[in-house]
């Protein structure tokens, strides 16, 4: 019997020591064990001794269990949360530099406007557009801008945060009462 193993995308949030070498411990763990990193972003937290890493990876349940366990084992990693296990909000920012012919400039601005993107730099032949949103939104604007001529594209990689739980708990409580 062939079982189709479903590879799911997971967003893992890592609270780590803000020390040199930690990123390479995490990256080395992924490469050494054959796991994949789709995107990664790192920045310090409010407590400057710690950093937060957001890693997007994929794998079946078994692979993800190994990834989280292995990450937990790294001494400089303080906490591992698989955000995909619950409700979360994710965002990504992209800076898109487009090469515009005079007749395309209005179209570029229209597209930016539709997506609530901002023009953050402009020259007679280029616009640089800043867009924030979930990855689908960013992919959509890229697809629309591509025919105009994308010169450069930078994406931050995803960041994500868990939705506060007491709200959903309160909603459930309300549902129970109405039921």
């Amino acid at each position: 019997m062939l079982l189709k193993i479903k590879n799911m995308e997971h967003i893992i949030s890592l609270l780590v020591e803000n020390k040199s070498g930690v990123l390479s411990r995490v990256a080395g763990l992924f490469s050494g064990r054959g796991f994949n990193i789709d995107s990664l972003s790192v920045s310090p937290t409010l407590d400057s001794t710690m950093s937060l890493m957001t890693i997007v990876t994929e794998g079946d349940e078994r692979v993800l269990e190994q990834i989280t366990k292995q990450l937990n084992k790294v001494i400089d990693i303080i906490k591992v949360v698989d955000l995909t296990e619950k409700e979360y909000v994710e965002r990504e920012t992209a800076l898109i530099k487009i090469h515009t012919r005079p007749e395309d400039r209005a179209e570029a601005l229209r597209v930016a406007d539709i997506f609530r993107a901002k023009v953050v730099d402009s020259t007679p032949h280029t616009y640089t557009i800043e867009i924030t949103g979930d990855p689908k939104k960013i992919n959509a604007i890229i697809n629309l801008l591509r025919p105009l001529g994308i010169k450069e594209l930078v994406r931050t990689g995803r960041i994500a945060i868990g939705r506060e739980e007491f709200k959903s708990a309160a909603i459930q409580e309300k549902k129970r009462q109405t039921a």
Partner: protein
Amino acid sequence: MKLTGAEIFIECLKREGVKTVFGLPGGVVLKIFDVLYDEKELEFVLVRHEQGAIHMAEGYARATGQAGVVLVTSGPGATNIVTGLVNAMMDSCPLVVFTGQVSTNLIGNDAFQEADIVGISRPCTKHNYLVKDVNELAQVIKEAFYIATTGRPGPVLVDLPKDVSMSVAELNYPEKVYVRGYNPTYEGNKWQIKQAAEAIAKAKRPIIYAGGGVINANASEELRELVEMTQIPITMTLMGLGAFPGNHSLSLGMLGMHGAYATNMAVHNCDLLIAIGSRFDDRVTGKIAEFVPNARIIHMDVDPTSIKKNIHVDIPIVGDAKAVLRELNQILKATANGNLKDVRYPWLKQIEEWNVKHPLTYTQGEDIIKPQYVIDMIFRLTRGDAIITSDVGQHQMWTAQFYKFTKPRTWINSGGLGTMGYGFPAALGAQKAFPDSLVICVAGDGSFQMNLQELATAAHYKLPVKVAIINNQYHGMVRQWQQLFYNGRYSASRLDGGPDYVKLAEAYGVVGLRAKKPSEVEAVLKEAIRIKRPVLIDFHVDPHENCYPMVPAGGAIHQMVLEDPKPEQKAEQQRVEKEKESILPA
């Protein structure tokens, strides 16, 4: 009072209870060696190659259960210990390894003898540190020992730049240590342990599969209690041998690629596999899809990543083997009913039948020494009252098969990494820890030549280790695979040009002995044991002897090759093979 980094280093080691440091000096660690010059409590063992130092530290650690300590210089000194780090990582061996580093202002400049050992060793240590400030030194050393020796033990490396050992600071040795990202689980989940107890009570054909984790957790007594109370037969991994007495009637010895026929059959046909401190290594499981097809699996391990890494587990228990077994034994004791000897009888009888059918054995003739005979004789002469180390290959497997280890920490060898050249320095480390114990290294002629320079260390420190070279003039295991799977094309496995080991020993001021005939083996071994000096014994053994049973790589463990294939036996072999494939009815 302010101390130099070098003085702080030595002081911290002493406060950690370190007695012996293995290593070799070099430019950037000279300040530390200068302090060592006056040191009375710490003994430094000067090796002849850094790889020897780290294997000695491993031998020391395995024999004592305490962290082995290494001090080497930067660059090549540091890179020479990498094999040992990986070895210690794979075999969960507690080590704290100090490497010198060029001064902090030179790091990254390709300075003389600079190597990024923190980068190099990152994937092969449990954790590592670069000390950038002398004020952090004491804290780092404290953390290093704590991390190396707790949870699943492993090697920790501390890189010490030259200016850190030269500059001065107050000694701030922390009495307590807390690492916020490190919190090993010791107590097993009570509910899970109860589930395990229930599964054990229900099982008809249970088997315990114990690994090195039992020895690391000092849980042999608890294991013995479990085995004797439940009458469950027990098999051990290569690393687990000694966790339970090998001469006990319920011991089935080692399982896996070179496990005994009855042992592998018992594992294959069990209905409950109780894994304790073992990790379902491929040399144990063979073809994983066909491993224990009819069994539920209980897996206890202190390292959560070991559980469900290779195989699905029904009852996972994360915890220290000692704590978990205590709890389990208590539950089992409270709920025990009936005479388990009667309950277990059919299962044990079945295993005994398998054993009678294909016992672990060899035939010693008159003319040529069988390697197994040497191992057998070592066991007969020591009765298990010795520390045995080995290198890697056929001789290692024969030792695991024929030497019945009766106590934990008496069997020291390289399991996970399979490091040739490990056994001899490991024996020296174990001997250093236990100067009055009989320490015997069973070596292959191929393996021994990888670290034979340590004969000088043995002579220098008068470490009375006995090295029994099982000399078959081949990389024997390679030759065996070539014979069985590559049509006897012995590519690069024959060791022509080996030295005269007796003369070699004498050149180092070590006693050299030789046995060429079976009749000489016992006398030579007795003589070696009698001499209170290092002895190198050259046993000329049958070069074509193979290690059986053998599970071909990738095969299921119940499908063993039991002897050299002979054409006329092929039909019979096939019939046996078929029979082996059949699984006992549930």
